[in-house]
């Protein structure tokens, strides 16, 4: 392609050819290197996942050498910091506390989240939606520590004054409420995305048959978007399960199984924080409980996320 110089004048143009070829080679080498580098960046995410799994497994191994998996999963008492003969390592109370908060949060967030999503997608005019959506996003951006403070200073006193007599300073109810507030924007925006993915032809068909707005919303849009709603719901629950600071501030640190929403409970995350704050020496059994509890937490949230993505992926395929 590149014209090669005549025999009378070989040296200068020969040099330029070589120069061009070398330049090209350099280009190609650089291109390949960059490609590799970017690929490595993308692969890092896989390494992070692998790292999490390896760390959780290897660091919880010493714990499971002392406490059997069966005992860990079925014992009903969690007393990790006592003297040897009184120690009990049953994770059920922590799981129970975690699920109590998660369920409570959903009781708060599900109706409000789905209701506001229906309002925004089916009722609200565009200008109102453009105002309300960014404000809801602010709610999602507030740090969880702020919600914990809010629970301690506002929600618990309010509940004690007007709703429940004899509520404790640390209690599951106020933690549930603030975690619920925290996940409203998540449910609301994911549900609204799902509602807006429902083709307009479905709505128009229903309206043409004389349906009212409520019927369209509840009998056409909602069922059509159901898998999106369910997946948003699962993601929100998994978020509530992993929520740490608000819960450890508001719900206290008393692992128990008795489902009392007015008293303190301890979640898995709050336990991890409690141990991390107290100076537990590296290598002790208490230290390794962190990773055993972390492993349970990771497996629970990971499974839920996986299911949610499966469901919403199927939903997206149906309409795109």
């Amino acid at each position, binding site marked *: 392609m590149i014209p090669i110089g005549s025999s009378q004048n070989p040296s200068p143009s020969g040099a330029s050819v070589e120069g061009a070829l070398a330049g090209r080679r350099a280009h190609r080498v650089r291109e390949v290197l960059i490609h590799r580098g970017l690929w490595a960046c993308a692969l890092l995410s896989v390494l992070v*996942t692998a790292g999490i799994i390896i760390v959780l497994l290897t660091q919880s191994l010493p714990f499971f050498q002392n406490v059997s998996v069966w005992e860990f999963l079925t014992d009903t008492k969690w007393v990790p910091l006592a003297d040897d003969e009184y120690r009990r390592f049953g994770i059920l109370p922590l799981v129970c506390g975690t699920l109590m908060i998660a369920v409570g949060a959903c009781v708060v967030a599900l109706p409000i989240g789905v209701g506001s999503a229906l309002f925004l997608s089916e009722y609200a005019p565009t200008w109102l939606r453009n105002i309300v959506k960014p404000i809801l996003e602010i709610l999602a951006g507030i740090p969880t520590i702020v919600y914990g403070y809010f629970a301690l200073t506002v929600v618990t006193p309010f509940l004690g004054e007007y709703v429940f007599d004899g509520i404790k300073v640390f209690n599951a109810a106020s933690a549930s409420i603030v975690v619920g507030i925290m996940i409203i924007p998540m449910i609301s925006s994911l549900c609204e995305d799902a509602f807006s993915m429902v083709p307009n032809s479905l709505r128009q068909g229903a309206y043409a048959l004389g349906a009212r707005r*409520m019927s369209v919303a509840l009998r056409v849009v909602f069922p059509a978007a159901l898998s999106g709603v369910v997946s948003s719901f699962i993601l929100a629950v998994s978020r509530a399960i992993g929520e740490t600071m608000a819960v450890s501030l508001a719900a206290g640190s008393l692992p128990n199984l008795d489902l009392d929403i007015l008293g303190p409970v301890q979640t898995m995350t709050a336990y991890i924080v409690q141990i991390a704050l107290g100076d537990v020496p590296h290598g002790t059994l208490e230290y390794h409980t962190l990773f055993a509890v972390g492993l349970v937490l990771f497996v629970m949230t990971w499974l839920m996320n996986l299911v949610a*993505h499966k469901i919403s992926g199927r939903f997206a395929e149906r309409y795109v």
Partner: protein
Amino acid sequence: MRANAASNPSIQSGEFRRSELIAKTTGAVFAILCFCATFAALAALAVLLIEIWQSGHSGLTKSFLRGNPSSLPERAGIYPGLLGTLWLMGCTALFAIPLGVGAAIYLEEFAPKNRLTAFINLNISNLAGVPSIVYGLLGLTLFVRFFGFGRSILAGALTLSLLIMPVIIAATREALKAVPDSLRHAALGVGGTRWQTVLHHVLPAAAPGMLTGIILAFSRAVGETAPLVMIGAFVHVTSAPAGILDKFTAMPILIYDWAERPQDGFREVAGAGILILLIMLLAMNAIAILLRNRFGKHKLA
């Protein structure tokens, strides 16, 4: 039935009107309920902000900003936390932005459609759902102990980088997707290599969107507390850090410590700390929104 209706039109129209009325009422009630749900969320935000302003604004003084943590609420200050957070964010940006943007460029511009790519995608979306405290456990084992960085800013920043990378990747990919293919075709058509196309044409076009997403990712990292607690960035640090291997504390951690103390005085101090944190977040969000509005109009699509 038809004969009956025809012979008695007044009854039929009365029934019809009643069912019409019921349907109308339930429809209105439902609409109001939906509106109330939206309003409840907004009201919660308003109450939260007002309450924090009331409990915190009197504590926002110069001595609070410049002071060190103290066991007396009236002398407590946030200075080491403020600087710790700034250091942390700076170092996190150093690690997280190149890695996150690089991964996004690969996945959006270079990646072949194969199983490995699909696996990486699934993996990233799963990472986004991992609780932040689990990242803290990873950071504690890997950075603090295994690599021996100790309870330093470096360890904290690396942990936060891993935490926000999925967010940065997702935001960058959205921005890259918004760049029209015609731009790429033109650059490739005049003989640019793939990397030249990306570097000189796609990235500049996607930059505002990327920046918006990255700022929002960092506004999440600023308030992150749990992983730092795990790293051990706890309060008994009374001076500002001077290098990346120094011990540190951060604003959310000081706030947690203050909120947990029983004395009433610390409630005000915690409120003041939260106000500073929220002001920082608000500023970051405002910048992100400004960027979006400023450059969103010239979108190439």
